[in-house]
């Protein structure tokens, strides 16, 4: 929690260093169907974050004794490339990555009809190519698109976005610098059509009122992300229709 860059991240007019308003997302670019081998794939750029997601399955599960008799086993791996951060990250999975893989899996699970594919596995791979804060949220957003691209039946898309507190202000979608200098960071994943929060984590300090406001702000951010996800899915199919005509 270094405060070297204090009083610089948000100016008097509530404008952040990168020119965003307090409740504004970073520019998001989404693309569906980017990898040839995967059953479904997607790519996201959110600010400087660059993340690829691929889905394989439903497919036969090995070893077989892990298979669930009534539904598919969702397997999820969140992984950061060694070159994705300032100081090289060892490619071996860290404790953080193991925890995030678990919470991301639990964030995606409510959205899929796993019961349609008993005894199989659905594998979700999230590779962070470049990280700048909020990678678990961007990872969930892009993985949900990859699941849809793989044709897995889904109740809803999962959209994710963080809210947090920086220099006393509640802000949306924190960059790495804002997260490190800030007072709190709260990633949240949401299924908009079910009012369902499927991931919620927080670290830092928030009063009860701030917590409530931050939840509301993150939910609104997720709704915005949701609109972008739908556009990205449509974009893929519109192109195909145009070719057919």
């Amino acid at each position: 929690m270094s405060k070297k860059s204090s009083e610089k991240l948000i100016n008097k007019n509530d404008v952040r260093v990168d020119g965003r308003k307090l409740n504004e997302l970073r520019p998001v670019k989404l693309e569906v169907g980017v990898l040839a081998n995967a059953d479904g794939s997607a790519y996201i750029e959110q600010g400087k974050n660059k993340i690829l997601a691929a889905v394989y399955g439903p497919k036969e599960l090995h070893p077989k004794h892990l298979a669930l008799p009534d539904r598919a086993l969702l397997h999820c791996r969140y992984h950061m490339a060694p070159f994705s951060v300032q100081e090289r990250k060892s490619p071996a999975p860290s404790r953080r990555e193991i925890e995030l893989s678990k919470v991301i899996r639990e964030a995606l699970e409510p959205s899929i009809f796993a019961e349609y594919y008993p005894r199989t596995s659905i594998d979700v791979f999230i590779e962070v190519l470049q990280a700048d804060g909020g990678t678990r949220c961007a990872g969930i957003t892009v993985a949900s698109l990859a699941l849809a691209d793989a044709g897995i039946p889904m109740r809803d898309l999962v959209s994710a976005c963080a809210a947090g507190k920086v220099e006393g202000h509640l802000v949306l979608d924190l960059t790495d610098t804002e997260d490190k200098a800030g007072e709190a960071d709260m990633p949240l994943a949401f299924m908009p059509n079910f009012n369902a929060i499927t991931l919620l984590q927080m670290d830092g300090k928030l009063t009860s009122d701030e917590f409530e406001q931050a939840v509301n702000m993150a939910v609104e951010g997720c709704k915005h992300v949701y609109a972008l996800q739908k556009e990205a899915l449509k974009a893929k199919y519109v192109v195909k229709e145009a070719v057919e005509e």
Partner: protein
Amino acid sequence: MTIPAMVVRVRQKRIAELISHGKRLDERGLNEYRNIQLEVGVIERAEGSARIRLGKTEVMVGVKLETGEPFPDVPNEGVLTVNAELVPLASPTFEPGPPDENSIELARIVDRGIRESKAIATEKLCVKPQKKVFVVFVDVYVLNHDGNLIDASAMAALAALLNTKMFNYEVKNDEIQVEPGYTQLPVVNHPIAVTFAKINDKIVVDPWLEEEQVMDARITMTMDKDGKVCAVQKGGYGYFSKEQILEAAKIAKEKSEELRKIVMKS
């Protein structure tokens, strides 16, 4: 289906039914914790220790202090390391081996509560900037798993930290010389984790094992001594509505005060 498996199914159905009527199989209220017994100083070799019984859940926490190098970005601060072991003797479902995702998650939730509430005044644990600081090892040892390991571990960890004594020392030629006597580890905040399970669309505190087996999802809110939220973690395959999350935050604030009194008394 074997007979024991059927009994489990019937009990699980009953647990879920009762909760939708505002009752629990073990006759607790929805916002009521199991009986808590907390002892501190149970391991003389450790600088601090505690053993908690939360119903039938038992967790021991030992604190060890060593010297080590600080992190380069905070060269004047001591280091906190939390580890959790789901020891095989604690449950038929725990297996020996390196920490799995469950024990890593448990350790990281406990860690986040202590770290984010700034419970330990780490700036007082510096021996020589950039070179030598104290490293506080908090080892969570689960002895009997009957649900809600998170709250039990977090309470025991706080109790163990409050129980931790540092030997007095002087620094001579960059080396530590032990002096007679002890001082308390500087613990300046008291984070308390409150975990909820969502069962049949209702939220209940302190789920025991059978409730954890039927729950859709769980959420942990860690509150600091000023009633601020300092860590949150949702787990499990289900989800919460926004209203349930905000309700949980409200209950967590009240419950954490009650639990904190128990820890501070020990």
